[in-house]
């Protein structure tokens, strides 16, 4: 896994999200599970207890619960910028699934790849960035209008 070969991005927030109001970037959560399999036991418990509370807490996110006959239960999270994230929840307990859901809610939909720097500024320099003439005294004095030519 070389840095050049793997994609990377700079730290960014989606449209300066927290500065004004905060918009939850999670658009849609689909919980795919099976009604009778052993692997979806935790999911079924979570759907009994925690799903309605979660949906009420996050009014901006749509929660779809779809029981299908599937071998592996999944959570498919879709974000406002179009990214889709699938998490496999086989043999997870109900509190673990709610933790996972809070993690997905807090994420913005940006790609999870290497972040080049852990900071980002629009104004990196306040006193003016250094250039070779910052600490040099001026070679000419202050420029004044030429009085000699008028006289």
């Amino acid at each position, binding site marked *: *896994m*070389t*840095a*050049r*070969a793997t994609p990377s991005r700079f730290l960014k927030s989606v449209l300066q999200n927290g500065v004004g109001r905060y918009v939850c970037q999670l658009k849609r959560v689909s919980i795919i599970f099976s009604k009778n399999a052993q692997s979806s036991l935790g999911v079924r418990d979570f759907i009994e207890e925690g799903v309605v509370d979660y949906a009420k807490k996050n009014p901006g996110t749509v929660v779809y619960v779809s029981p299908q006959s599937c071998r592996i239960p999944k959570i498919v999270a879709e974000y406002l910028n179009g990214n889709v994230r699938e998490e496999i929840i086989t043999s997870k307990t109900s509190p673990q699934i709610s933790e996972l859901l809070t993690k997905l809610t807090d994420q913005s939909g940006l790609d999870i790849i290497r972040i080049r720097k852990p900071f980002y500024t629009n104004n*990196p*320099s*306040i*006193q*003016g*960035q*250094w250039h070779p003439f*910052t*600490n040099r005294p001026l070679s000419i004095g202050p420029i004044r209008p030429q009085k000699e030519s008028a006289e």
Partner: protein
Amino acid sequence: MVFLTLSCWIRSRGPDRYWKVQELLKHARHFRGRKNRCYKLAVRAVRRAFVYATKSRRLKKRNMRTLWITRIAAASREHGMKYPILMHNLMKSSVQLNRRVVSELAVTEPRTFLSLTKLAKARQQEGFCAALGDGKEPPGVFSRVVLLQ
């Protein structure tokens, strides 16, 4: 007569060779020459690249530190000071700024860096007075370090 042994000679090989090859070649796509296309050459090149990446994780820390030190030395020489004097006097005045931050200040905030050099120069002078002047007058403001608890 029916030939039955022919069908016994057919082997069914693994179905995934293409994808395994592509997994390796995706790490070689930015290489130069045939190493980015041919699997046999790419295997060796990718392995070397990974080894270099592992080794250079340690080297990067060293190189960044030398870069910061070079920058701080250059900036302090503009103000008539030298790097070891600057850092030693900053440390003695309990200014706990690491080299990364000081080099960033030297680049983006030149006036703050100037004030840091002045502070270090003043502390140096106080150190000289304390060493040579028999300590009759109080050594000075910057050498009295207040420990906040």
